């Protein structure tokens, strides 16, 4: 541990609750934060799996009433979806939100909350330092995947197809008031999705650790997230009903979310965002493929303390690296992580997931201007990033 950052801010505005069947008491939690007419935001898959109904049933534990359900959130939410969700809020006269789903659902609810306090168009309020002009409506988030950590972060990522861009809305007030981690809502997640969302969470942890904005509090959360994911992701993937493993994965994803909400992420996310935008590569898959390559790349930044950080990753995994130098320890960690992605059955190369080879240059230009790139240590050059894409190809 060294290179203490000169300045940082850290916050976790919401409360986190974790227990099997904790959604049974979601009504009580809503009473605590003052919501009375609830719009449930979800997607069709989650609804068809019966998860939305479990949460609606849990509302009976309190006095708030469910006045509507908005189930039209697509895998990557967009401006028009948020608008339709807000129309539903008005139609149902809702005063608070419960989101049940993955990152896209929770982000849609966060952005809808903006429309509930502001006037005008959502785009008028698009900012990474958005300041709400009034108190945000009560919002409880219930994740059904263990990946994004969006239930505790204060940003929403929403696509704007007209501008062909993913827009970021960010303010600490946007964090849901309560995040309820209930492993019983994740036991039916299929192995492929368990693996890729879990690798998304792991990437958040590792990128928070090598981010230029990393600081000790986030480091602690990220490293513990790594300890948990490297122990439990393979178990949750092999046996979806392993409730302990499911619980630890939810907790780890939540910690990863808190860590990267405060410390931000780097080159791997910049590249994954670009692949997602251009070729629709699922975010978790892109992160999983790029993670070991990105780490190898960042090893060059020894002045920024990267090999020393990755030694801590190796220690968190539980590798015996006591007699290795930082670089060797880091490489052992990277190899171990590669082995994990093989064990849980994820693709290893971009060529396996439909990324066209002649699209790598366009992906590179896009990645170079992604906000995440600026938080990566050093100053990666365009040629270096293209080379990195090719390696991962």
């Amino acid at each position, binding site marked *: 541990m*060294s290179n203490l950052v000169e300045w940082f*801010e850290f916050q976790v505005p919401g409360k986190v609750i974790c227990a*099997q069947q904790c959604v049974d008491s979601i009504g009580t939690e809503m009473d605590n934060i003052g919501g009375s007419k609830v719009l449930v935001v979800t997607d069709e898959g989650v609804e068809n799996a019966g998860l939305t109904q479990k949460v609606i049933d849990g509302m009976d534990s309190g006095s708030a009433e469910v006045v509507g359900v908005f189930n039209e959130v697509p895998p990557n939410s967009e401006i028009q979806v948020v608008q339709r969700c807000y129309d539903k809020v008005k139609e149902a006269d809702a005063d608070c939100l419960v989101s049940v789903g993955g990152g896209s659902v929770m982000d849609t609810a966060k952005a809808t909350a903006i429309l509930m306090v502001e006037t005008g168009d959502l785009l008028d309020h698009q900012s990474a330092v958005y300041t709400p002009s009034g108190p945000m409506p009560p919002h409880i988030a219930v994740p059904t995947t263990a990946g994004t950590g969006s239930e505790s972060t204060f940003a929403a990522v929403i696509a704007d197809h007209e501008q062909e861009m993913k827009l970021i809305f960010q303010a600490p007030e946007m964090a849901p008031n309560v995040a309820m981690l209930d492993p019983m809502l994740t036991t039916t997640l299929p192995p492929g999705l368990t693996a890729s969302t879990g690798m998304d969470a792991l990437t958040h942890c590792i990128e928070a650790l090598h981010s230029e904005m990393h600081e000790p509090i986030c480091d602690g959360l990220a490293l513990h997230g790594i300890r948990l994911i490297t122990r439990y992701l393979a178990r949750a993937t092999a046996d979806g009903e392993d409730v302990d493993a499911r619980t630890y994965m939810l907790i*780890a994803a939540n910690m990863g979310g808190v860590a990267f909400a405060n410390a931000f992420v780097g080159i791997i996310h910049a590249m994954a965002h670009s692949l997602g935008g251009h070729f629709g590569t699922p975010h978790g898959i892109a992160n999983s493929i790029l993670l070991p390559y990105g780490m190898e790349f960042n090893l060059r930044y020894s002045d920024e303390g990267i090999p020393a950080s990755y030694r801590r990753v190796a220690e968190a995994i539980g590798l015996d690296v006591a007699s290795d130098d930082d670089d060797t320890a880091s490489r052992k960690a990277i190899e171990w992580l590669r082995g994990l992605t093989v064990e849980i059955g994820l693709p290893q190369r971009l060529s396996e997931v439909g990324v066209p080879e002649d699209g790598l240059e366009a992906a590179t230009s896009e990645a170079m201007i992604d906000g995440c790139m600026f938080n990566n240590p050093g100053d990666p050059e365009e040629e270096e990033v293209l080379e990195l894409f090719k390696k991962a190809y």
Partner: protein
Amino acid sequence: MALKDYYEFFAPTKVMFSEGISEDAGEVAETLGGTCAMILTDKGVMEAGLVEPVKDSLEGSSLEFAGVYSDIPVNSEVAICNEIAELGREKGVDTLVSVGGGSVIDTAKGVNILLGVGGDLLEDWQGTYLVPEPLKKHIAIPTTAGTGAEVSVGAVIKHSPDNQKISFNSRFIIPDVAMLDPVLTRSMPPRLTAATGVDALTHAVESYSSLDHCSPSDALSFYAIKMILEYLPRAFEDGNDMEARGYMLIAASFGGTALSTTASIGACHAMAHAAGGLCSVPHGIANAIILPVVMEFNLEHCPDRYADLAPAVGVKTSGLSEIDAARKVIERITEFIADFGLPRTLKEAGADPSFAERLTDEAMGDAQMFSNPHEAESEEIQELFEKLLS
């Protein structure tokens, strides 16, 4: 890793860290939307000149400045809270800025209850989760790296005439902002640095082994221990080592959040509270004396938890059984504390040797005892006290 059935993690304080950040207190108060600020501190902090920059910043802000209250004693009292609240009400204070150690910050929490919801601290608000609604704004600026009061959910305030320590726990008394400025801890003498640092270490070790531990508290405790083992000796040797001072402030905050999350942590804290209340042994010193003894006492009930800390304290345990690994961790922590040259027994720290029974009664009733890794019998605790008093 045993998984806890249910936990809540609530740590809403915005933590801000930087050398000299206390000079921005005024701006931060503005962002909280306050209109009239008051500083709460004690004489020592005043004399060390630590309040000046905070005061200048508040005076230069758009808030009205209602002055400095600097008469908070080392172990604050309910009567003091009442007195300050009276002053605050007269002046329309809606933003409290506490600059000091745990006693000062806890006093501000008590004052905040009175300014926010009125009533009587003892009759209406002692206990857990009674305060019904958000209070006034509170910015906490710690001048020691130990208690973690700047982020924690509790306040401990003494009540005369019987010197009972009263606990107030409420999510609404958690400060809104903690400003961690290592410059303010630079003038702490080595012995105070060590005692407060070991207090932070004890929070982390005991919350790691607490029956109420959960993943977020584990994460925070584990890395707090790692930082304290690395940086407390450096801050002790050279008070001007700003990197070490910085890490210690951050580690103490970690410890405070961990403690706040587990709520009840263990026998060491219960015993240290008793020794503080009845024999005036400073809290950090009491923890330094008691922690190794309590770890030994708990060893066979939580060897897995102690063994788990091996990488945090930097001992190699490969090839060892769990219990032997746990023993090595205890040895390392015991040596670590011993190196600071603090008293080794309560007798050495000035406690009355005839007090074992009274101390035991007090400790057994302390809420911190409930989550010790195993249920301690009164006779066992008395035996420990007798050993430490002889």
